[in-house]
Every structure is written in C-alpha cells, then in structure tokens.
C-alpha cells in the first residue's frame, strides 16, 4: 500500500494516468447522480434502485452488441429502453410511495434493487461483461498515459447529455412543469399541472439517464449484476456533496469522485475500491453532520 503511494508521487505520469482515467469514468457517475438529484428534488425520494437502472442500461447495450449492432448505437437504444422501464417502474411501485414516509420509499426502492439485481443475475449470468467499442486508445507522454477513446467519448457524451437535460428543464414546457412541481407540488396542481404525469416523466427521464450511463459504463468499463449498489451510493454521495439543484456541482463532484476512487483503488488495491466508496460515503455523512452540529452551537 505504502509502495503504491510512493510510486504515485515519485512517478507523476502514472498519477496523471490514474487521475485522468478516473475523471473520465467520473462523467458516468455524474450522469447517474444527475438523475438521482432530479428524482430526489421532484419526487422527494432517494432512489436506491438507481444503480440497478444503470446496470440494466449496460445490459441492453451488451445484448445489442451480442446480436451484431454497432456499440455506439447502444447508447440511444439503452436510453429509450430504460425510459420505458422507468415509466413502468413508476406506474407499478413508485407512485404508491411518493407521498409516504421517506423510509418507506427507501425500503421499497431497496427491494426493487434486490429484485432487479437478482433477476439480472438469473437472466444474464454473474460474469463480468464488457463491450469493445473498437475505437482504440490515445497515448500521451510517450505511452505512459493511456486513455481509451471510448472513455473520452463517454466523458463528452455525459457532458452533452447533462447540458441537454439542463436546457430541457429550463426551456421545454414539460421541463418547466417538472421544476414547478419540485418547488411546490400543491401549487403546481392548483395551476393545472398533472403532477402524477410529471412524476412519471421525471422518473422515466432519470431511468433514461441511467440507461445512457450504463451503456457508457459497459463500453468504457465493465458491468456485472452486483455492481448496482455502488452506483447508487456514488450518486447519493455526489448529490449530498453537491446539493439537489446544482448541475455544475453534480458534474464537478462526479468527476472528482471518479478521480478519487481510481486513485484509492490504485493505492489501497482494487479489492478495497468498493470498500473505499462506501466508507467515503459514511465519512461524508459524518463530516456533514458534525459541521451542522457545530453551526448550531458555535461556541462549544
């Protein structure tokens, strides 16, 4: 562990490689986190099934490529398929827990997460899956820094998707209805907004974002049935750090998390990378709480 840490500082190109690759992967986290922030802000639900939606999106692309389609086409298809899946999940379960106690929605989405995770395991097998987008890699600094083109593309696409969504929320009619509902659902209803439909569309949009993130994840990285919960926790962490209504913050925090996680995986060893993600989340919550507590009694 210490050796890796020393290596990290003694050999800067290596550190650059680890951090840049982490940043690029972080764009995928940011995309999923943006969806979580949307659902959190509008439906007031912490969507624990978030990561499974990402994984499902990845499987859609994987299956498409298996049947001979070009990988990059997987991205829009995954998004569209997951949009429908999200809409179905909302109609089946989520709409029943929207107004309930927050713990009920957490537990219900947690149940969904176990359900989808195990279904994926049965249907697609527990193997680690990846898709080769056949784009090659970019070599920098004499070959010490290797960046797969698909990661760079994923990074760009994630930013574009975030920007499109932001514009949609600002300017489209439905986007404005979503923002109105987020601010005050009762007032929105009085003004004639069908909040139930807004909730359904928001949840479906979130699923589409997750689908896109999953499609990028399977091309730039790997997926397997049990990798969902880490995505949920990453999204949660990013939203907690950045705040629910802060697009730029979510993107920055997502990228930062990607870099941090990749560096931690390198230093502590890959077997501790997931442990690091979860422990970091706990640490962030504790730190946040300690800060709030200090604010309440500034002299103590």
């Amino acid at each position, binding site marked *: 562990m210490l050796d890796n840490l020393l290596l990290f500082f003694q050999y800067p190109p290596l550190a650059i490689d680890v951090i840049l690759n982490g940043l690029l992967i972080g764009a995928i986290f940011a995309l999923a986190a943006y969806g979580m922030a949307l659902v959190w802000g509008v439906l007031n639900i912490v969507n624990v099934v978030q990561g499974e939606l990402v994984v499902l999106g990845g499987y859609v692309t994987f299956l498409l490529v298996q049947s001979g389609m070009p990988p990059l086409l997987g991205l829009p298809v995954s998004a569209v398929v997951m949009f429908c899946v999200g809409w179905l999940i909302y109609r089946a379960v989520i709409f029943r827990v929207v107004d309930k106690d927050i713990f009920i929605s957490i537990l219900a989405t947690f149940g969904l997460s176990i359900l989808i995770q195990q279904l994926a395991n049965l249907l697609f097998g527990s193997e680690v899956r990846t898709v080769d987008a056949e784009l090659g890699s970019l070599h920098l600094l004499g070959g010490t820094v290797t960046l797969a083109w698909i990661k760079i593309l994923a990074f760009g696409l994630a930013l574009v998707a975030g920007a499109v969504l932001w514009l949609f929320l600002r300017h489209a009619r439905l986007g404005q209805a979503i923002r109105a509902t987020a601010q005050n659902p009762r007032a929105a209803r009085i003004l004639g907004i069908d909040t139930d439909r807004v909730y359904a569309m928001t949840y479906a949009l979130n699923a589409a974002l997750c689908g896109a993130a999953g499609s990028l994840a399977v091309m730039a990285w790997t997926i397997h049935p049990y990798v969902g919960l880490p995505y949920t926790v990453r999204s949660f962490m990013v939203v907690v750090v950045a705040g629910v209504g802060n697009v730029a913050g979510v993107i920055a925090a997502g990228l930062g998390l990607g870099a941090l996680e990749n560096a931690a995986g390198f230093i502590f060893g890959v077997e501790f990378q997931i442990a690091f993600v979860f422990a970091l989340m706990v640490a962030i919550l504790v730190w946040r709480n300690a800060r709030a507590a200090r604010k*309440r009694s*500034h002299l*103590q």
Partner: protein
Amino acid sequence: MSALLEVRGVTKRFGGVVANESVSLRVEKGEIAGLIGPNGSGKTTLFGCITGTHAVDGGDILFEGQPIAHLRTAPIARRGLIRTWQQTRIYDDMTCAENMAISAREAHGGLVALLRPVPAATTRRGDDLLAFVGLHEKRAERAGRLSFGQQKLLEFAMALMNEPKLLLLDEPTAGINPTLINGLIDRLRRANTELGVTLLVIEHNMRVIMNLAHRITCLAHGRVLSEGTPDEIRDDRRVLDAYLGAA
C-alpha cells in the same frame, strides 16, 4: 426582584437577513412578561436564540446570572428554561399520560435513572396536571388524535411537568376556540402564582396579552421598539404604527 433572564444586545442573522438586531430584554423572577410585535418582527427567532436552537451572532444571554448563549437546547432545558412552539410539538404516537411521564424532570437524569419504571408519584403528578388543563379523560388517548387546541393544552401541561423556572410560550392562544381563551388565561395565571413559574409569552391577541402580562416588550423589524406596562404599551403611538405598517 432579580432578573431571571437577561438578554443583552442579541443579534441573529440568517444570511443577509437580520432577524434580531441588538435585542435586549429582562424577565424578572416571578413575573409574566409579554413579547409582541407584527409578523416577522423576530419574536420566534428570539425564542430560538434563548433556548439554544440558533447560534447567536452577537450579544449575551444570562439565565440566573449564568451565560447560556453557548449552550445547546438540552442543557439549557435542564437548567429550567423550557419553551413551547407556535405549531405545537408533542409526541404524536404516545398516549397523553406517556407524554406527561417522559416530560418529568427526573427524565433528565443519567441512564441508570432512566432504567426504572415511571414512579407512581410522577404518574399522579402527570394526571393532576392533565386535570389542571382539562385533559384528564383523554389520558389514555394517543396524543396525535387530539384536536389542535387540546394538543396545545397538552404541550403546556408537559412543559409544566418539567418544573421549569422560566417558561417561554409561543402564541398559547393561537388556534384555540375563542370561548376557551378565558379559561386558558386563568390557567396561565395560576401556573404563575400557584406553581411559581415565570412566564415569557409571545401573543398576537392583544386582549389576552394586555390582560395577562405585567410588562410587555414590543419588537419591530428585529429591534426593541418599546417596553413598558400594558397601559404604557397601549398608549404608545409607535406600537400602533408598527402594527399598521407605518413604522
């Protein structure tokens, strides 16, 4: 008389909004003090500062001569300074009797003291106080089931159960059936005279506060506008202007 509570130049800001600016106020032992002011004048914020919910940005708060501005809510409460809320706060899913039992002063003790059943004397005192506010027949009912007015009375009884030296009441008559208000004023007075509790009351109902309080402080825009006996306040031109929005 000696000051039980002394607020000295307390300032509290929320972001750029100054909710309290250099507010000073004294509550003497044994009196009923009133706090009035138009909506948004900083009365409830001042309560929050005194009881430790808000960290003050400046000034001192002394309770029985000891500084308390740095303490959190629970230690302040244990010194005998209890408040009630405008939107009442009670323990919804517990019965009225349980609400009373856990509000007793003994519950402040350490863990060992908590690991005993509620003493019969505490239960009796709880019942007496419930009877005092007229809720005795509701003692076995879930507190969340009571009407708003009844919940308000329960909260008042719970506060008395805590044997406070000073009780801060935030609009005790708001939302209460007007025909019951006289009874409530009577009970507040009896809590003051018979149980020896000093009161600081926020009240919007002028008839109530003029009847009840010995001395009144009026806030406007976060500052102390005027202070005096009910008669002096009634005749103060500035107070009227503040309420009519001219100030």
